[in-house]
């Protein structure tokens, strides 16, 4: 049976990304172990500092992505109902504009208005990652063949049954692609959360810049890259698993 494969998740090539991540982690460990570190570098690169930052980063990404899905998917569904067709275009335009604003700007503005901290960063991340989820939910539902909906209505499905039996399952691949984009965006933008005192790998990078310590900067950046690659790889696997069979 012919199937559309999600890039990078075919069984034969699925090991490539983990291999790259492993190489990067080994490489950076060897590098840090081989250069002489001064006291501030040793403090910044202490294992507990790195693991705390990594854990904060993962928390930021997971919490903000879950919230983005919880808001974006229902909103996208609502905006494709026949009663809200006009509103859909307006909301999409607004969300598009929001995407054009640089994320650091959103973050700083929100911090100025609401203060700093973990939840502030989460709000900024959600605001920023909402668009791909919202848009892909709407596009995914709208691209469902009208004939299928006609067939469903014709056999006596209610609007609700049409949504859950036909529209949503068939929109899943497009929606998953949007969620994957949101996840990757969140991994990147979450590095800026360091500026609002929410921690994460961004704090390692920014202290590397502030102290002008190259090893610290490199460790922070490479770990962010590794996290992004790992998240994308996991998302790809989830995408393949969750895609309905037969389409």
């Amino acid at each position, binding site marked *: 049976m012919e199937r559309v494969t999600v890039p990078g998740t075919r069984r034969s090539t699925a090991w490539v990304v983990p291999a790259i991540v492993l190489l990067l982690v080994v490489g950076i460990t060897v590098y840090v172990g081989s250069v002489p570190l001064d006291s501030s570098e040793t403090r910044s690169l202490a294992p507990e500092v790195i693991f705390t930052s990594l854990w904060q980063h993962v928390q930021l990404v997971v919490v903000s992505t879950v919230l983005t899905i919880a808001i974006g998917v229902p909103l996208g569904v609502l905006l494709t109902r026949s009663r809200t067709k006009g509103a859909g275009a307006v909301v999409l335009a607004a969300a598009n504009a929001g995407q054009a604003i640089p994320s650091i700007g959103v973050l700083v503005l929100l911090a100025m208005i609401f203060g700093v901290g973990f939840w502030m960063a989460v709000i900024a991340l959600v605001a920023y990652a909402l668009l791909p989820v919202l848009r892909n939910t709407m596009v995914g539902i709208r691209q469902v063949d009208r*004939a299928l909906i006609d067939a469903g209505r014709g056999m006596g499905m209610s609007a609700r049954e049409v949504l859950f039996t036909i529209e949503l399952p068939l929109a899943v691949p497009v929606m998953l692609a949007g969620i994957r984009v949101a996840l990757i965006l969140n991994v990147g933008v979450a590095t800026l959360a360091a500026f609002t005192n929410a921690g994460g790998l961004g704090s390692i990078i920014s202290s590397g810049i502030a102290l002008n310590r190259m090893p610290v900067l490199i460790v922070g950046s490479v770990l962010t890259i590794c996290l992004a690659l790992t998240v994308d790889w996991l998302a790809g696997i989830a995408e393949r698993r969750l895609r309905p069979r037969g389409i």
Partner: protein
Amino acid sequence: MSENPGSSPDTMIYLEGVSKRYPDQGKDAVAGLSMEIKRGEFVVLVGPSGCGKTTTLRMINRLVEPTEGRIWIDGKDVTHVDVDQLRRGIGYVIQQIGLLPHLTIAENVALVPKLLGVAKNKRRERAEELLDLVGLEPATYGNRYPRQLSGGQQQRVGVARALAADPPVMLTDEPFGAVDPIAREKLQLEFLRLQERIRKTIVLVTHDIDEALRLGDRIAIFGPGSRLAQFDTPLQILSNPADDFVRDFVGAGASVRRLTLLKVGDVIGTSTMEASSVLTTVEVDPGESVHRALEKVLAAGAEGVNVQLAGGASRIIDIQGLLTAAAQRTPVPS
């Protein structure tokens, strides 16, 4: 309820003065249409595009809400009943077939029983029974997905799905429109054979007059302006077209096409001619069409037919006699 025109036991579908008007269009899509469709009858709605035939079909299951008029199905006024309940009791087949690509063939067939709350194992049983009925081996096809089937097979699944809840009425909109001509003819014949077994009341929409003549017990020809130009049997439409529009729409070759509908037995009944017995003949059955009989004669290079009548009797008639009889036999207007 004595004034209910749809309550006769023979009547399955009754449309009374049904109209559909769209606010942004000047003229009615369907205007003041009245029609009676009998129980177990196969009625074909045919006409040029934009004549309102699909709108009429879709008003029967209220996918299009009529602006005016009333519709009875099986003696019940359905103009104001719950639409979802109504549609679960009416089979519906569309040109695009509309199988859900993410469900297996068996799941697709079992959709309406599922909506009706039938238990899972019962649904599965019913799906297998129906796949069997439309000539698809359940063990082979039940667990496949729609895209793994050919267009013709998919359309058979579409018919099986429409029959799943055993509805008395089936509405079909250009069901053979999307398959290639060879598969189409095969599907049409299969559909007729199926109808002989299940005896549903079928309303079929097509733009193809040949399909209409081949399938319909009665044909409703829609003219421009959504006028019902003629509603009669295929033979009547070919023999006595109601007006020039019907004559044009049926097109050239009506008299030859009539021969496919006339049975040899009926024709010779009216024939007073008797041919001499020295002819070379081919044997035909009284139930065969005149068209088929002529084909046999021409293929065999014979001069006439030898009709095998009931009780061992037979009757010989030459080509000229058969044609003259066929041309004379004009059915009485019903």
